[in-house]
């Protein structure tokens, strides 16, 4: 049998090499052909793509992230720590052989086609992997925060739980301190926790995109850049910019040719100080103002449109809600809805909420319809997205959008635009600022309203799956750091 393997460890001196030697020895003793790529400090060359294409299984003996894991996505895999590979190399090889027998690799011809773009690692492909790494670290925050917020709405009432804050002037308000029933208070507590988890989405996304690009030194500049993106209201798209910028800056700094003491100071002083400063300055001073200006322009534009064609307004509001899910464009549309609500126009608020509900629902449906187009993690995020969708927590779609913005965002916008227009056409109304399905009692023309949401959901799901299947299957490229055990 032909096997390929990747070994890696944080320092890349000892364990990755020992694991490589142990695997090579054990595999050859068993009559298998093995080629090992040591992703260590010695900088061994990557495996030839033809070797990967011919292989029947891959072994990852790793204590650190596997670089360019996507190259092996067509192969049945076994993943162990380096120590296990050193101590029990024979057993590990046997497991790889068993995995290959149980689930053979896709046909070599197809493998070649798939291996090629990854092996040459085109720019777009590399960016995609960086984004996927950031997304995979962000997903737990989306799921944890989103479900807690939804649960808060359910137990406390979607409107009631937002009417007071649990922390006031640095003091925690206990059940007796607030003028609200116990469950409303407890819902508000959960909402606070969920909201804090959500406040980490953009920083974590940015921090770990930078981590994928520049290893550990990327994290601090990336996280701080993400915090700035959050503070200037740039949303997750701002986070993508911050993460890519931080990764790029640290990558460039790593190329500074210095020796001796100065070189030792790079990771301790230079990367954290200058990396963070550069990313923070750019995000704050260069990105901040255009974002604010665009928000103002969009607000003026929306106001100038009110009173004109209703359907057109629904399409525009819908598209805006789905564009950046909590970012500046979404906020403008949402604020417009609130403004209309305050002035007694309940139709616009209904359209806003409907358009914010379809993105997570659309992606949840899409990942159920064509699971093969999505990674294991995305499918799990899809399950949580159902709950977030019906709760009007648009952020549930962010993991999908951040991983593949060019295909996902247009699909979300089209679905939401359809829903927004239909909601207005059906004359649905909403007399609450949020809450999703949990404020159904405050929705006028509720049945047509749900139909509008369902139609937009289906439109998004179908469109995104068509767009995704037009290119190679993204699920084949699992994010770095995620096990794809066969």
């Amino acid at each position, binding site marked *: 049998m032909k096997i390929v393997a990747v070994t890696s460890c944080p*320092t890349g001196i*000892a364990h990755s090499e020992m694991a490589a030697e142990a695997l090579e020895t054990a595999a050859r003793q068993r009559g298998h052909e093995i080629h090992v790529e040591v992703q260590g400090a010695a900088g061994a060359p990557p495996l030839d793509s033809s070797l990967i294409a011919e292989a029947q299984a891959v072994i990852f003996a790793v204590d650190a992230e596997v670089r360019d894991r996507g190259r092996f996505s067509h192969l049945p895999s076994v993943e162990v720590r380096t120590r296990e590979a050193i101590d*029990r190399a024979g057993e590990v090889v046997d497991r790889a052989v068993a995995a290959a027998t149980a689930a053979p690799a896709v046909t070599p011809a197809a493998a070649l086609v798939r291996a090629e773009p990854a092996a040459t690692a085109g720019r777009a492909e590399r960016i995609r992997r960086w984004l996927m790494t950031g997304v995979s670290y962000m997903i737990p925050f989306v799921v944890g925060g989103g479900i807690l917020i939804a649960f808060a709405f359910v137990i406390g009432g979607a409107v009631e739980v937002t009417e007071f804050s649990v922390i006031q002037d640095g003091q925690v308000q206990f059940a007796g301190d607030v003028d609200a029933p116990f469950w409303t208070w407890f819902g508000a507590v959960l909402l606070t926790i969920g909201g804090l988890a959500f406040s980490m989405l953009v920083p974590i996304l940015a921090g770990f995109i930078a981590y994928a690009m520049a290893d550990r030194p990327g994290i601090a500049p990336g996280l701080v850049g993400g915090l700035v993106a959050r503070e200037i209201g740039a949303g997750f798209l701002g986070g993508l910019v911050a993460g890519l910028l931080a990764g790029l800056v640290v990558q460039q700094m790593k190329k500074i040719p210095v020796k001796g003491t100065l070189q030792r100071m790079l990771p301790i002083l230079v990367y954290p100080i200058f990396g963070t400063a550069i990313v923070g300055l750019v995000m704050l001073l260069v990105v901040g103002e255009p974002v604010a200006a665009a928000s103002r322009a969009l607000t003026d534009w929306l106001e100038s449109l009110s009173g004109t064609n209703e359907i057109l307004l629904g399409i525009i509001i819908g598209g805006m809600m789905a564009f950046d899910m909590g970012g500046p464009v979404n906020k403008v549309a949402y604020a417009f809805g609130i403004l209309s609500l305050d002035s007694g126009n309940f139709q616009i608020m209904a359209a806003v909420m409907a358009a914010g509900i379809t993105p997570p629902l659309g992606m949840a449906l899409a990942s159920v319809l064509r699971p093969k187009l999505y990674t294991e993690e995305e499918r799990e995020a899809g399950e949580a997205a159902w709950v977030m969708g019906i709760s009007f927590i648009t952020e549930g779609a962010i993991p999908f959008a951040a991983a593949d913005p060019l295909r996902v965002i247009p699909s979300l916008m089209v679905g939401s635009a359809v829903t927004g227009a239909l909601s207005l056409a059906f004359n649905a109304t909403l007399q609450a600022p949020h809450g999703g399905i949990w404020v159904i009692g405050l929705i006028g023309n509720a049945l047509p309203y749900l139909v509008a949401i369902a139609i937009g959901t289906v439109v998004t799901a179908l469109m995104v799956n068509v767009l995704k299947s037009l290119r190679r299957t993204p699920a084949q490229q699992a994010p770095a750091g995620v096990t794809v055990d066969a």
Partner: protein
Amino acid sequence: MTTIEELIAPSLISVDLSATDRRGALEELARLLERDGRVVDVPTYVDAVWAREEETGGTGMESGIAIPHAKSPAVARASVAFGRSASGVDFGAEDGTKADLIFLIAAPEGADDLHVTVLSRLARRLVHEPFRASLREAPTAEAVFDIVKQEVEL
């Protein structure tokens, strides 16, 4: 070309470690490196090694070897110290085996030069039982040095 002689010397080898615990063994070996001017700050360096040990749960293998290692600014030049322990020292091997052959690797921050290649070759040889057996039988530091030199330069 870097040779193994630049990395290890009989003065960096102890065939009879007195320490019986992990921290003690690390310090004993680190002091050998310090005496030779290879490590400038033993506590800082040992802390770095210790952090790696904690992070990975220990560098001990079931075959009785341990390769504690770290990159640290406290290291002046890439080096290896070797200690043999009659009683064995716990380095966290999965099955509880105590390590009797301990290679302490010291690499300066940002080391990605030829030294690493030599260190990795040494690490690779340790996978093979005959090499380990001969290290266990070698009577003196000089004998260990010769065996290592021969094995790695092959």
